């Protein structure tokens, strides 16, 4: 089994146009093994990152599923393993090994050449894995069709998946790779050095990294930072002799040779030796720079200086220009040692030609052009790397690179970056509102901002907090009596230790006994004690909101509103009976709040035991907390209630009146308050003081002594029985809703 290198991860791959497709496919395969592109075959020349990509896939699969069985082998290992298995008669076990794997990564399958037996074996393994939807990824240094004598069936299998190649990295990618690798190694170089190396004709990533290592090694022994020209000499050996001379000018003795070109070549040789001495073990690049000739031989070759004046057109003699301008003819001179000069000149073109100056010039020009004329291409490449790193889709930018002639690349890039920046802001907003929604695909595509905005709208809607408790229903305002004492004390305990003491707290009681007041009182106290939002609303509203959310396809956002709350209090919870979706959502919230020790509170007008239409799983959870009953108000509570209500109306508490009203039977506090209100209204309408007589009259219909009217001829006698019957000639329209407006009509 191959050793999986820790550094071989997707993050460490520099993505460029040459390898983007392969890496994207690799990611897809790693994220969903067996589901896409199976088998995946990647071919490229050595040193282009195939093995790195295999390792990255393995790491990714392992990170996502540590239990996954991953087989990562080279073809050599596959062959060797098979041969061992055959020799030990254990071939079944060998096959079972791959049959059990979830992911098979095979490196260097080009060695299948002419190995019919191994091809058959690999085919068998492939078929087993593909049938089991297990992922297979293979690499080769050449296209499958170029692997000699490869079984057609294997070709068919490969074609059934995806076959991709990794091309030679372009200039921008080479620069990016060098920068990334230099950064990883903590090395820094002056501007232009890495660009100079990238502009050389280095074909593979591995060679590129090797070149970087050479730069670093040189820089380590050099007192001054290496510059672009030196880098080119060191890496490519393409530097002109004169520049090479500069490289070692301090070490080399001044040359006495008159033939400068040749002298320079000697310098080049010296430069190599100096470098070799300084950097034992560092390969110094093309030795053919010296035209294949031994350096010493060149160095020892004497030079005449007879041609010292061969440029001196100002001197007498033939000018040194080419006569036939359509053909390259060697310069000549009448003076000096013709043979010696002839030898020298015959040698020089060969040396110069090896350097392919025009090729170098083109290479440099291409780099310059990329920087100067199409600088956007480099910037687009950088932008793609950056935004892919942010997790954004970059197809808009990739199209630019694919298009040889995009109409306005700058504005496309500016717009893309603006959109991406906006997405970043939206993502940050989503992160603050609903972290689990921030990673949505809608927020990763700058090419579809409309979808992002629509999605954010839903997130924002979800961010509006649910209804809070009504502010004026405070726990302190609740009158405590023997009947409700247990409930009030339980509420106080729950408030003291939210989520821990009584969770949930369920208040059960008839209508008007103070359940809602108590629930909101709890809510207000919790809100006061915590930073989070306390949701307090009726089950009816809860259900209505859910229905609207379903209608707008915004259930997630709706759900998140509640998930963010520090407490959830639902009034009239009995109303969820028969509402399945509401119960389901409440159940989920219930569990979440319990798990996170957040307070839950419910009020129900129906005892839990009598609740029908509620799922048992929810009912048992309600019962699992503290269920307290709020009974009808007892006499003590009623008395306090009457006193407070009278005081609230600015009435002095008449003890007799208070006692009388409190003695009246009442099923709820609301009813007691109703008594007081009726008496006070009646008193107001009669401009009389509220007293027990009036109260009796109002509440019981008791006869009262009425003063005779001063208006003659008008009968004002009233006879109202205690049972409310009308016995006088007047009658009261008891059914009139407002007491003060009840009409007392004279009976005729």
């Amino acid at each position, binding site marked *: 089994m191959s050793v999986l290198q820790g550094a071989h991860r997707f993050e460490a791959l520099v993505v460029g146009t040459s390898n983007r497709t392969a890496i994207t496919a690799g990611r897809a395969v790693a994220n969903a093994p067996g589901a896409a592109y199976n088998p995946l075959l990647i071919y490229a020349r050595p040193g282009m990152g195939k093995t790195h990509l295999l390792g990255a896939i393995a790491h990714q699969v392992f990170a996502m599923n540590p239990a996954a069985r991953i087989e990562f082998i080279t073809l050599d290992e596959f062959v060797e393993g098979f041969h061992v298995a055959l020799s030990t008669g254990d071939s079944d076990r060998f096959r079972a090994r791959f049959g059990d794997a979830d992911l098979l990564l095979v490196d260097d399958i080009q060695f299948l050449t002419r190995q019919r037996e191994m091809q058959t074996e690999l085919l068998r393994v492939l078929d087993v894995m593909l049938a089991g939807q297990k992922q297979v990824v293979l690499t080769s240094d050449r296209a499958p069709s170029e692997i000699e004598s490869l079984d057609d069936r294997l070709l068919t299998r490969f074609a059934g998946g995806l076959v991709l190649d990794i091309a030679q990295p372009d200039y921008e990618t080479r620069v990016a790779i060098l920068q990334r690798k230099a950064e990883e190694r903590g090395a820094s170089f002056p501007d232009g050095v890495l660009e100079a190396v990238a502009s050389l004709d280095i074909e593979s990533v591995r060679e590129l990294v090797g070149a970087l290592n050479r730069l670093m090694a040189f820089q380590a022994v050099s007192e001054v930072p290496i510059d672009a020209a030196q880098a080119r000499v060191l890496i490519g050996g393409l530097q*002109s*002799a*004169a520049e090479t001379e500069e490289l070692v000018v301090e070490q080399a003795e001044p040359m006495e040779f*008159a*033939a*400068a*070109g040749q002298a*320079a070549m000697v310098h080049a040789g010296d430069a190599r030796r100096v470098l070799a001495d300084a950097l034992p073990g560092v390969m110094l690049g093309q030795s053919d720079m010296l035209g294949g000739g031994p350096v010493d031989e060149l160095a020892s070759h004497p030079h005449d*200086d007879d041609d*010292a*004046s*061969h*440029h*001196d*057109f*100002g001197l007498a003699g033939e*000018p*040194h*220009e*080419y*006569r036939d*301008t*359509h053909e*390259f003819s060697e*310069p000549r001179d009448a003076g000096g040692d013709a043979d010696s000069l002839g030898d020298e000149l015959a040698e*020089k*073109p060969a040396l*110069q*030609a090896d350097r392919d*100056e*025009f090729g*170098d*010039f*083109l290479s*440099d*020009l*291409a780099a*310059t*052009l*990329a*920087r*100067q*004329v*199409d*600088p956007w*291409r480099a910037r687009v490449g950088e932008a793609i790397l950056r935004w892919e790193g942010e997790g954004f889709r970059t197809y808009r930018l990739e199209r630019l690179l694919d298009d*040889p*002639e995009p109409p306005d690349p700058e504005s496309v890039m500016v717009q893309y970056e603006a959109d991406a920046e906006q997405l970043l802001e939206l993502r940050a907003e989503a992160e603050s509102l609903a972290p689990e929604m921030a990673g949505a695909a809608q927020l990763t595509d700058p090419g579809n901002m409309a979808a992002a905005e629509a999605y954010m709208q839903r997130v924002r809607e979800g961010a509006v907090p649910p209804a809070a408790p009504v502010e004026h229903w405070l726990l302190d305002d609740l009158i405590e009596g023997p009947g409700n004492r247990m409930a009030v004390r339980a509420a106080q305990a729950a408030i003291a230790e939210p989520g821990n003491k009584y969770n949930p707290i369920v208040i059960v009681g008839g209508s008007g006994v103070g359940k809602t007041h108590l629930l909101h009182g709890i809510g207000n106290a919790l809100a006061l004690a915590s930073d989070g939002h306390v949701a307090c609303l009726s089950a009816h509203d809860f259900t209505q909101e859910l229905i609207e959310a379903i209608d707008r396809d915004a259930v997630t956002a709706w759900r998140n509103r509640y998930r963010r709350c520090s407490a959830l209090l639902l009034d009239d919870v009995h109303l969820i009976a028969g509402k399945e979706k509401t119960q389901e959502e409440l159940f989920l919230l219930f569990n979440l709040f319990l798990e996170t020790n957040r307070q839950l509170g419910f009020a129900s007008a129906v005892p839990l035991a009598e609740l029908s239409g509620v799922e048992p799983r929810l009912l048992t959870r309600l019962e699992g907390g503290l269920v307290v009953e709020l009974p009808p108000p007892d006499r003590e509570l009623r008395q306090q209630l009457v006193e407070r209500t009278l005081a609230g109306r600015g009435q002095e508490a008449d003890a007799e009146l208070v006692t009388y009203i409190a003695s009246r039977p009442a099923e709820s506090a609301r009813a007691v308050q109703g008594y007081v209100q009726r008496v006070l209204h009646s008193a107001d309408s009669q401009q009389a003081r509220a007293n027990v007589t009036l109260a009796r009259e109002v509440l019981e219909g008791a006869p009262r002594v009425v003063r005779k009217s001063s208006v003659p001829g008008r009968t004002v006698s009233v006879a109202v029985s205690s049972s409310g019957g009308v016995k006088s000639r007047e009658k009261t329209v008891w059914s009139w809703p407002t007491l003060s407006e009840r009409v007392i009509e004279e009976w005729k």
Partner: protein
Amino acid sequence: MSLVNFTAREITCKIVYYGPGRSGKTTNLQYIFGRVPDTRRGRMVSLATQGDRTLFFDFLPIDLGSISGFQTKFQLYTVPGQSYYNATRKLVLQGADGIVFVADSQARRFDDNLESLQNLQENLLSQGVDVRTMPIAFQYNKQDLPGELVLQPSELDESLNFRGVPSFGADALHGSGVFETLKGISELVLRKLAAGGIAE
């Protein structure tokens, strides 16, 4: 002239080699001609006197092929260095995208260099071209001659290159510095291009 045509994806650069007579302008072009593959170069036109002195001008078209998606063509010209051919020099200078000033490094030719440089500035001015905006590179040719005969590039820089443009020591006959100079002027031209110097 059309420097860069984004629609046609073409770049055409006209580079003029300027300098005093016998400084080696034609030699530069000939060296380049000798290094460019047959398929990439056009016919080099050179009109010379009987004494092999450039009478009118040299012209070398080079097709660099597709570079970064642009069909790139360089047109290299020389001007006659002799002072009495100023009309031809003006003609050749028209529409130049970049100029290589080939100076003769010999000390005794210093005044000729200066005179030619002044002539260049005058001719550019006469065509309404601001010399400060024109990409120019200096080449100090014949640096291979004995040290006592030539001025060093630093000395020539001090005297001629007061704008501090790129300069290159060269031995055009043997090629040293020729492509370096061409590359230097190309970069300047392309940089100007990127800075907005896109002609129609």
